[in-house]
């Protein structure tokens, strides 16, 4: 047929083409069938299809296609054929497995419509491919890929497990060091105490150091117990309606000695009206304390730490900012993770375990909040921001008289006359967070001038001051027309009876011996109104 040249008669030409196609179809290696009508009756099949179907061509002609194919393919395939017949759009049905074959056999089908003169399908052409080889190959590749992914995942998990074991070992090593350190100091302190019995100053210093080291160790152990409680899910938060300011005051009260030791300055900024949250006051104070501790630890002596609380919509934001060593970008995401952060060179260089920040995150999250660390990088300082859900402004459980505010009777004007900047500043901070209006004067003369301008309710007067001393400054204040009004407390390192008599004669109302503890200060501030009334001066 192929050798014949095309004839010029169009009918002959058509016949010629028809013959050629018929020849191609008959001997094509791909199994092929032509179906007619909506029941997909076989009107033509080639030799390859007959062989694939395993029946002589004569047995299949004029039979529905479903009878020529494996029964298990029937339903799904007929659905496809129906759709192609209905829509005229070609479709395929790939990788149909045949039952009862071992090894497996797969057929794939492609069906397209034969259109009549009106453009509607009159039948279908279906090509069937024994796709066993390619299907088995593809499935093998997929299975191998899955196995690879699985082993990679297992390897990754194994590596993670090893890393966490290493991190734990490193943690234990650092923990040992952290416990050993105060133990060494305690041990040395005991030995020193034995030899300095005759020297009360040296003995006092040793005892104070030992007390501090013991406290440090106790805090470390408490932190470890908290971590283990959290890990075991046994930590209980006792939430109550509470004012953020009172939580911050507690934390600051406990942290002030630490600020004084390093000469750090604490700048506290609190809102004028209460922000009520549902919180466990102990745990949340611990959060603020740990953040303050962290800020001091990573700041140069004398550096400033800013602590603030403010309300933003439904949230309260507590921020602790420092101008210390800062945090590298890569460290920010793991800064709260107890084991991971030890894993970095940077963290190891900083020393410590990182339990504090880890507890901050845990406690904040147990309160339904979140904590974020920010830093522009090494040397640029850091800021930690705690966000907690705020409750409605109404705080029924709180008597209004105890709220801090400008016009409330508990808010007093306080003047501190103190030449030691650290001692003065920490007292200012303490009184400010108690809600008082505070001024600081650095010597006796400045004290007298400031008292005249400021007209304080209360003056804390250091005695050993430059220019004129505290006793003389008090005499001058008392000599003013308004000078009888302020309650003046001497704050001094000298505590003998003779000293007390001297200050009493100079017009002081009270003689306090340094260091003034927070309890005594609170008691004094609360008692001033009564004292002044009794003295007939208020």
């Amino acid at each position, binding site marked *: 047929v192929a050798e014949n040249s095309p004839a010029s008669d169009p009918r002959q030409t058509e016949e010629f083409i028809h013959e050629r196609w018929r020849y191609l179809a008959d001997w094509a290696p791909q199994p092929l069938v032509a179906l007619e009508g909506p029941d997909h009756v076989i009107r033509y099949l080639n030799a390859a299809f007959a062989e694939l179907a395993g029946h002589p061509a004569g047995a299949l002609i004029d039979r529905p296609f479903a009878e020529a194919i494996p029964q298990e393919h029937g339903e799904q395939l007929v659905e496809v054929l129906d759709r192609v017949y209905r829509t005229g759009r070609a479709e395929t049905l790939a990788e149909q497995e045949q039952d009862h074959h071992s090894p497996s056999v797969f057929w794939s089908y492609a069906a397209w419509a034969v259109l009549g003169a009106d453009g509607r399908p009159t039948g279908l052409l279906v090509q069937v491919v024994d796709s066993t080889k390619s299907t088995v190959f593809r499935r093998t590749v997929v299975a191998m890929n899955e196995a690879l992914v699985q082993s990679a995942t297992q390897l990754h998990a194994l590596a993670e497990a090893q890393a966490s074991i290493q991190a734990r070992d490193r943690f234990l090593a650092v923990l040992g060091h952290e416990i*050993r350190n*105060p133990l060494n100091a305690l041990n*040395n302190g005991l*030995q*020193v105490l034995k*030899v300095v019995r005759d020297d009360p100053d040296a003995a006092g210093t040793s005892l104070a*150091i030992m007390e501090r080291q013991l406290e440090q160790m106790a805090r470390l152990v408490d932190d470890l117990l908290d971590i283990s409680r959290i890990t075991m899910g046994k930590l209980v938060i006792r939430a109550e309606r509470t004012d953020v300011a009172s939580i911050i005051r507690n934390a600051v009260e406990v942290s002030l000695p630490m600020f004084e030791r390093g000469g750090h300055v604490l700048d506290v900024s609190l809102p004028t009206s209460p922000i009520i949250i549902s919180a466990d006051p102990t745990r949340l104070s611990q959060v603020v304390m740990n953040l303050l501790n962290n800020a001091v630890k990573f700041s140069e002596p004398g550096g400033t730490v800013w602590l603030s609380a403010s309300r933003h919509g439904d949230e309260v934001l507590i921020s602790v900012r420092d101008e210390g060593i800062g945090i590298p970008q890569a460290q920010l995401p793991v800064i709260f993770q107890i084991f991971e952060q030890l894993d970095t060179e940077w963290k190891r260089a900083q020393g410590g375990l990182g339990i504090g920040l880890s507890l901050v995150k845990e406690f904040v999250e147990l309160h339904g909040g979140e904590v974020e660390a920010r830093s522009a990088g090494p040397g640029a300082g850091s800021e930690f921001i705690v966000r907690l859900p705020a409750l409605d402004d109404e705080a029924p459980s709180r008597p209004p008289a105890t709220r801090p505010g400008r016009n409330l009777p508990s808010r007093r004007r306080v003047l501190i006359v103190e030449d030691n900047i650290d001692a003065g500043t920490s007292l200012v901070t303490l009184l400010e967070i108690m809600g008082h209006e505070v001024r600081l004067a650095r010597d006796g003369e400045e004290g007298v001038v400031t008292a005249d301008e400021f007209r304080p309710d209360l003056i804390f007067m250091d005695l050993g001051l430059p220019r004129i001393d505290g006793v003389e400054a008090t005499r001058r204040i008392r000599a003013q027309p308004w000078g009888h009004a302020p309650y003046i407390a001497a704050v001094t390192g000298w505590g003998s009876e003779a000293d007390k008599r001297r200050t009493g004669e100079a017009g002081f109302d009270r003689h306090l011996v340094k260091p003034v503890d927070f309890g005594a200060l609170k008691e004094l501030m609360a008692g001033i109104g009564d004292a002044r009334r009794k003295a007939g001066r208020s």
Partner: protein
Amino acid sequence: MLRVLFVDDNSDLTRLIGIAISRESDMESAGELNSAERLVEELDRRQPHVVVLDLGLPGTDALELIGRMRQASPVVRIVVYSGYDDPHTIDKALQAGASGHVSKRQRLDRLFDSIRQIARGTPASH
């Protein structure tokens, strides 16, 4: 009088040792440093006979520091004061130029004895 400089990041520990040494008739404190920063410069200023150096100063390569101290002051004696007692690290510190080692577990009088021995030129390890 034997002048001793203490370097340890635990300021309470250095302070206690400072108090204890003030009781020793033949020694005095040449100062207490809580970081290795400026240590090499301080050697020149404070002129200690012996430096007692904590091996575990955070952020400090103690071995490298010992090398620099030796270069800056060939006569100063260095006593490594460590809490770990890891023999490998101590050997390395001695190789780097330290004259002796004292464990932080030791009593202070043992520390002072070792300082005296090392100052006399006798190697000591406790």
